[in-house]
């Protein structure tokens, strides 16, 4: 098991999947951010990789955790719990749904917060982490207003930094896609990561590179195309701000209904963001992973999102009470404990375990466990 994982990681990091190289500078994603390079980049030594057994079933495991970057006890408690689960059940990678560095991101590529809020807490987890930007990563105040998107660029730069502490941090661009297990013709999984902050921030960013015309819509166009042409068996989308949530931030289209009066961004309710997610991912991604609200939620599918499963995993360091626990119907939800989600993807099914971590003593328990059929049928390629 661990050997397989090793192989996998080596594939990934050395020979394996290449990453769409988006420019690391703010707004650089605009214009399409370069072509998606998720075609299986057969590693040099792996080119003659003949299948040992014909089409052995593939599997892949990951942990999804979010709103992690406090550097405090909560983050360490959750990290320890993740270590235990990785040891017990195996894990190939970790997804972080944003707010990687509280409260106001980093302001340099050598900002010590990379150590305090990422490297040290996860130093015992020898896994690649794929991260997305949250509002606190792009904020200039503790309030997380998200009006300083340029700050997010330092988190992209850290991905490319030669001086980084470990090679775990993966954020090749502000928004990107990443293919996994590319040993066959089609990847087993492709991850699509959205930069939601410029689309939904509380406060307007004065930098016009991040407005909808220069950044939001080009991102949407790029993402729609990337998902559309992806041939991956599993497709998972990750973004910070939820499509639906029972937490205080609420549903896209009506985000922060009770706080909004303080905001100056007319897009703060997420009206355009909601359409973004629907147009890019509805019935195309199997799973939409989000954070932002500090709780674990597995929501019932929403009509406008088709069969795409919706999850909120934002309890990686903090908890917040639900604002309206019955706002949306759920498969499972918990707002009183830290936690994360462990997922195993198989050819035809997805096993999901919601782990809850007690804020009192850090003890770990399973909150919910469920195996479901793959939500979205993999598309069979039409002959040319």
């Amino acid at each position: 098991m661990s050997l397989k994982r090793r192989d996998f990681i080596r594939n990934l990091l050395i020979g394996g999947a290449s990453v769409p190289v988006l420019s690391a500078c703010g707004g650089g994603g605009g214009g399409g951010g370069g072509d998606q390079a998720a075609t299986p980049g057969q590693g040099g030594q792996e080119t003659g990789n003949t299948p040992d057994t014909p089409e052995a079933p593939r599997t892949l495991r990951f942990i999804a955790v979010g709103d992690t970057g406090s550097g405090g006890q909560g983050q360490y408690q959750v990290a320890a719990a993740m270590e235990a689960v990785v040891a017990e059940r195996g894990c190939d990678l970790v997804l972080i749904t944003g707010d990687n560095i509280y409260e106001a991101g980093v302001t340099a590529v050598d900002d010590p917060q990379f150590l305090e809020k990422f490297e040290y807490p996860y130093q015992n987890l020898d896994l690649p982490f794929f991260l997305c930007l949250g509002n606190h990563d792009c904020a200039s105040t503790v309030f997380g207003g998200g009006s300083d998107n340029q700050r997010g660029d330092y988190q992209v730069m850290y991905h490319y930094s030669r001086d980084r502490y470990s090679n775990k941090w993966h954020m090749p661009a502000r928004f990107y896609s990443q293919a996994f297990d590319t040993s066959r013709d089609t990847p087993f999984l492709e991850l699509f990561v959205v930069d939601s902050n410029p689309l939904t921030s509380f406060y307007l960013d004065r930098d016009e590179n991040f407005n909808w015309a220069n950044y939001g819509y080009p991102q949407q166009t790029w993402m729609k195309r990337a998902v559309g042409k992806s041939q991956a068996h599993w497709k998972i989308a990750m973004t910070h701000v939820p499509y639906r949530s029972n937490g205080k931030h609420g549903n896209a289209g009506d985000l922060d209904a009770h706080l909004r009066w303080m905001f100056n961004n007319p897009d703060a309710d997420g009206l355009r963001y909601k359409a973004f997610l629907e147009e890019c991912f509805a019935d195309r991604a199997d799973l939409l992973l989000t954070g932002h609200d500090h709780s674990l939620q597995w929501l019932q599918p929403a009509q406008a999102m088709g069969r795409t499963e919706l999850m909120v995993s934002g309890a990686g360091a903090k908890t917040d009470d639900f604002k309206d626990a019955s706002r949306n119907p759920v498969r499972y939800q918990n707002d009183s404990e830290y936690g994360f989600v462990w997922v195993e993807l198989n050819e035809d099914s997805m096993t999901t375990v919601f782990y809850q971590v007690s804020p009192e003593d850090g003890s770990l328990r399973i909150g919910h466990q469920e195996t479901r059929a793959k939500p979205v049928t993999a598309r069979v390629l039409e002959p040319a």
Partner: protein
Amino acid sequence: MKRREFLSRSATTGLSLGVLSACGGGGSSSPDGGKPGTDNPGTGNPGQPGPTPNTPEMPPYGGPDPFQHGVASGDPLANQVILWTRLTAAGLDEIPVIVEVARDADFATLVYQGVGYARSQNDFTVKLDPLLPDPETTYFYRFRSLGFTSPVGRTRTAPAPGAQVDHLRLAVVSCSNLPYGWFNAYARVARRADLDAVLHLGDYIYEYAQGEYNDPDLAGPRPVDPPHEIITLDDYRRRYACYRRDPDLQECHRQHPFICVWDDHEIANDAWMDGAENHNEGEGDFADRKRAAVRAYYEWMPIRMGFPDRDMRIYRRFDYGDLLTLVMLDTRLIGRDQQVDSPSEARDRNRQLLGQDQRQWLFEQLEYSRGRGARWHVIGQQVMLSPLTLGTLPDTPNWDLGGGAQLNYDQWDGYQTSRRALLGRIEAMALDNTVVLTGDIHSSWAMDVSADPGNPLVYNRFTGQGSLAVEFVTPAVTSPAAPSKALSDLARAALVPLNPHLKWVDLFHRGYLVLDLTAEHCKADWFHLNTVSEPDDSEFFARSYLTRDGQNHVERASQPSAPKTAAPPLAPATQGIKP
């Protein structure tokens, strides 16, 4: 040569290209299962037994001319156009109708010949969707049946989607209430030989009972049939039949292809998805009424049914070369939530005007249109997109405050989230050259379209800076607005200062507008009528506004656009040729 081939193939090889009856089920459908509509070309009446399409066996008939409701054409594509007629022949059913299409009004150069059938299940209406050899070409057509020949119709195919097109002209009409006056506007539009098509933005018929909504000052009576409010399928059919007896409307259909959408009165006043202001429980289930109204609409209007199993879906797109993409929307039946009457409800984020599917479709069309390099993206729809207010403040969605004090919650003002979504998309796309065409409101308007017209930081009322698109509103053919010109002028003097995006409004005159499109401009010329109280041949040029390529705001022009040079001749004014 090629044409010959085409003709012989379509007429004799049994392919019966585009030979369709108005019955959706084709020749073999059960009498009760058919829906109005047309099949795709090539699927109609395959292997029709008996006589060839050229000489179908006619039943014996000794009655009067069965072509009582004229001919019509519509929904032009590059190589297709819907052809329509209706037979009135007591006692007969399943009546064969031969259609002929030619390049000339004398039918010397036939390009198509086919057969349709007038059936009782479709109210004896006949619709064909022939394949025609050339895009951007004027054709003449006629029907023959029971020993009679219909008036000669004239139609025009659209340019091929990729073709370079220099000049297009469209007449835009709406709100033709027969008891409220004479269709002088249709008569004037009919005479314009240089039009590519006529857009009808709805309220083609009105559902009211005789006397409920008519002009008491009308010089002569304009009775409608049936005299009661129309509710059942039979009622709606009779109402269309009544309107189609009007010679001016017949003439307009005869000369031009129409592109139509319904508004509310094709069903009932202020219709929405599941009801209407002018519908009560005593009138039965609204769903039944809606179904009846929609069925009669497809039977009687020269429109192509895009999805035969989804007749409520009328929204559709037309590509006119590289100059124009025309998107026709349904703001009534497919997705509209019920009207409300307070500003806070109008801001309800859960309410929709277009519905999820149509909204997403619209966004895709805008992206498609830009992607294919169309110069103008024209949205034909019913209710006013721009605010109509008695005072405009900066809009603050986060406070759910500001914007305007709305006057009419039936228009987009009552669906602010839907408007924000559309304008937000145009803004996000940085899409230039969007033009919105509107009917419904019985008056003429020229407006900039801004997301926040009351906010000087967003929109400059003096320069038009910040405007995202333009909106032109066509007046009614007959339906009334302000009772006098003086009142209209008074209202204009009040409304223009209160609505920064509003450049011109006329609330009194009936008429129509002509949209003139070139690579440099999209221009609306309003033509107004002196009267609709009696048949009258006069009209006058009222105003002209244009938007230049890339400007996205209106400016006034002093003169109407020049007509097209070398317009094809109108169809001759011959009536049915007796045997």
